[in-house]
C-alpha cells in the first residue's frame, strides 16, 4: 500500500513545495512508495481524503484558510507544518506589527475588497504532528519525514542550534570572532549552516531552536552595537510569532 499524501498551500510563496520538487530525478523513486492524492501544483487529479500524510505549506491569514485547514486536519492521519509560514506565520507575519488597515491601504487603493486577518502558523487552529522548520526546509529534512511516516516512526528532526552544524564545517564564529550579528546560537539547525559557509551571518530562517536562550542573544547583539530597533527586526522576521520570540519581538 502506497502512502496517501496530500500537499496543501495557504499564504506563502510555494518555495517549500518547490523544494520538494527539487528532489528532481529521485521523484520516480518516491512515487514507488507514495501516491500524491492531492497536490494542486503538480496534478489535476485532486482526490478527497483520507490522507496518511498531509504537508501543509503557508500561514493562515483569511477566514477561509481557517475553515480549510480544519477540514484538512480531519482528513489526515499525520499533519506536517511545511516551512516557516505554516510553523509560525513566517515572513508574512511581519505585518502583524502594523495595523491591518495600514497594510491594506499601503498596497491597495481600495482596501475594502481585501479580506485578511492577522497571520498565524497553522497550529493556532489545528493540531500539528511535526514541524518542518525553514524558509524553505531542506529537502533531506522533508524526505526524513516521508521516511519516518512510511516506517511508522518519529522523524529525527534537529533540535539543536545552527552553531553545532557550523562547528562541523569548521567555520570561524562570525558572532564572537568577527562581531557580526549572527542568529545562529538561537536558530534551529537543519540547513547545514549554509549562510556561514558562504560568508554571511545566519538570519534565523529556521526559526527558534528548542529552548533558545533569547535573553542572552539579545544581550550579545547589544554588545556588538545593534540598536533595539535592529534587534526587534531580527526577531520579527521568520518567526516573530513563535513563543520564544514573541516577547523580544515586542521589546
Amino acid at each position: 500500500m502506497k502512502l496517501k499524501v496530500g500537499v496543501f498551500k495557504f499564504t506563502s510563496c510555494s518555495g517549500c513545495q518547490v523544494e520538494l520538487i527539487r528532489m528532481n530525478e529521485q521523484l520516480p523513486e518516491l512515487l514507488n512508495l507514495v501516491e500524491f492524492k492531492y497536490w494542486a501544483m503538480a496534478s489535476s487529479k485532486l482526490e478527497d481524503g483520507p490522507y496518511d500524510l498531509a504537508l501543509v505549506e503557508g500561514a493562515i491569514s483569511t477566514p477561509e484558510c481557517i475553515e480549510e485547514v480544519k477540514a484538512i486536519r480531519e482528513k489526515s492521519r499525520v499533519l506536517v507544518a511545511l516551512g516557516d509560514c505554516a510553523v509560525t506565520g513566517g515572513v508574512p507575519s511581519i505585518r502583524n506589527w502594523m495595523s491591518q488597515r495600514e497594510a491594506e491601504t499601503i498596497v491597495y487603493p481600495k482596501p475594502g475588497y481585501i479580506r485578511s486577518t492577522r497571520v498565524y502558523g497553522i497550529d493556532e487552529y489545528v493540531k500539528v504532528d511535526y514541524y518542518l522548520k525553514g524558509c524553505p526546509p531542506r529537502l533531506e529534512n522533508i524526505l526524513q519525514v516521508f521516511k519516518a511516516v512510511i516506517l511508522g516512526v518519529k522523524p529525527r528532526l534537529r533540535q539543536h542550534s545552527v552553531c553545532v552544524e557550523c562547528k562541523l564545517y569548521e567555520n570561524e564564529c562570525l558572532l564572537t570572532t568577527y562581531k557580526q550579528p549572527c542568529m545562529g546560537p538561537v536558530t534551529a539547525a537543519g540547513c547545514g549552516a549554509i549562510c556561514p559557509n558562504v560568508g554571511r551571518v545566519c538570519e534565523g530562517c529556521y526559526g527558534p531552536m528548542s529552548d533558545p536562550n533569547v535573553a542572552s542573544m539579545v544581550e550579545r547583539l547589544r554588545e556588538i552595537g545593534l540598536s533595539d530597533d535592529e534587534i526587534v527586526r531580527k526577531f520579527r522576521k521568520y518567526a516573530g510569532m513563535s513563543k520564544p520570540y514573541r516577547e523580544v519581538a515586542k521589546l
Partner: protein
Amino acid sequence: MKTVKIGYLTRVEGKAELDLTIDGEEVKDLKLKIYEEPRFFEALLIGRSFEEVVELTSRICGICYVTHQLSSVRAVEKVLGVEVNDRIRLLRRLIAIGGIISSHCLHLYLLALPDVLGLPDVFTADPKLLVKALRLKAVGDKLVELIGGRGVHPVTIVVGGFTYTPPKDKLMELAQSLKEAKKTAVESVPLFSADKFPRFEVDCERVALSNPEEYAINEGRVKSNKGLDISEDEFRAFIEETQVPHSTAKHSKVKGRGSYMVGPLSRVNLNFSQLSDDAREAAEASGFKFPSSNPFAANMARLLEVISLIDEALELIDAYREGPVRAPFQVKGGSAGAITEAPRGMNYHWYSIGDDGLIKAADISPPTCQNARRVEDDLREYVPTIAHLSEKEIASRCAMLIRAYDPCISCAVHSIEVKVKKL
C-alpha cells in the same frame, strides 16, 4: 440558462478561478478571479533596512526568487550609487540563467506537458522521460545553488555583489551536465511543437526588455512590438496599475492603449536574432514561426530559451574567473527602480530609501500582475472560437491558455477553478 461547475483546474501557480458566461458565441461575462491571500510585501518592507530587501523580496515567490533578488538588489544599488564589476555582472547573469532554466523546466514538463500528453500529471508519464526532464531541470537548480549557496531563496546575493566566489572547477563540472541537459531540451522540441497546440492568433502588445549587447535578462530597455521604447526608470510613466474588485492581483496596462503581454513569447518575439544558433534551428523545426501571435507558442519560446541559455551558460562558465565580487558603498537616501526578466516576464521593483538606510516606500510589479489583464483579453477573443464545444472542453482549453502564461499568480501555487456558465 446552464451553469456548469468544473472542479479544480490545476498545475498553475497561485489561487485563481475563472468565471465565464457564454450566450451562443458571445462572451457575456469573463473574470479571471485571483483570490490568493495577499501578503502585503510593499507594506512589510517599510522600516526594514536596505540590506534586508533582497532577502525579504525573495520570499515573494518560491519559484522565481532569483529575479526578485536581482531586481531588488539592482534597484537598491541604483539608490546607493553602487557600481558593480564585470565579474559580478557575469555571476548575476549566470544565476538568472539557472533560475530561468529551472522555472521553465518546472513549467514545461510538470505543468504544461500533461496537457499535451492528455494526462492529469507527469507522475503517470513515462518514467524515462520524467527522469530526463527532471535531470534537465536539476542543472538549472544546481547552477543557482552553486552561485547562490542554496537552491530556493539563495543567500549569497547582497547589495554590492556576492558574499563569496563559487569555485571555477565546480562550475566546470556542471558544464558537463549542462551539455547532457541540452540534448534533452533539443529532443523535446516535438513535444511542444505547433501541431500539439490550438491554432489561435491574437494581435496584442508584447513587451520585454531588449539589449543590443545580449539577450536581455538583467538589464535593458523596455520595448514592444507597438513602438514602446523606454528606460526602466520611465516604467511608471508609461505603465499604469488599477485595482479590480475580483482580484487581489492588480491589473496593468500601457497608458492610453491597453493590456499587454510579458514573458518568454514577448522576449523571443522581440529578441529572436539573439538566440543561439541551435535555438533558432529548434524554432525552425517547431512549426511555430517567430515572431508568433499565438499565445500557445509561449511554451516553445520557453524551450528555445532553455536551449539558448544553456549555450550561453557554457560560454559564461568558460569566461568566469574567481576573484573579488563585492563592491564598496556608502549608505544614502533616494529612490530608484529596476527591471529584470523573470521567467514569466518583466519584474519591476522600485524603492524609496531614507538617509538612515530604512525603506520608506516600495512598488513591486511582478509579471503575473502585468499579464492578468492580457489573459482576460486573450480569453475574450479565444472563447468565441471554441464556444461550440462542451463546457468541459471549453474549461480545459481556457485553462490551457491561462497555463501558457505560466501565471505565478501571487507567485504562489494552488489552483484555478474554471466555472463555465452557458446561457
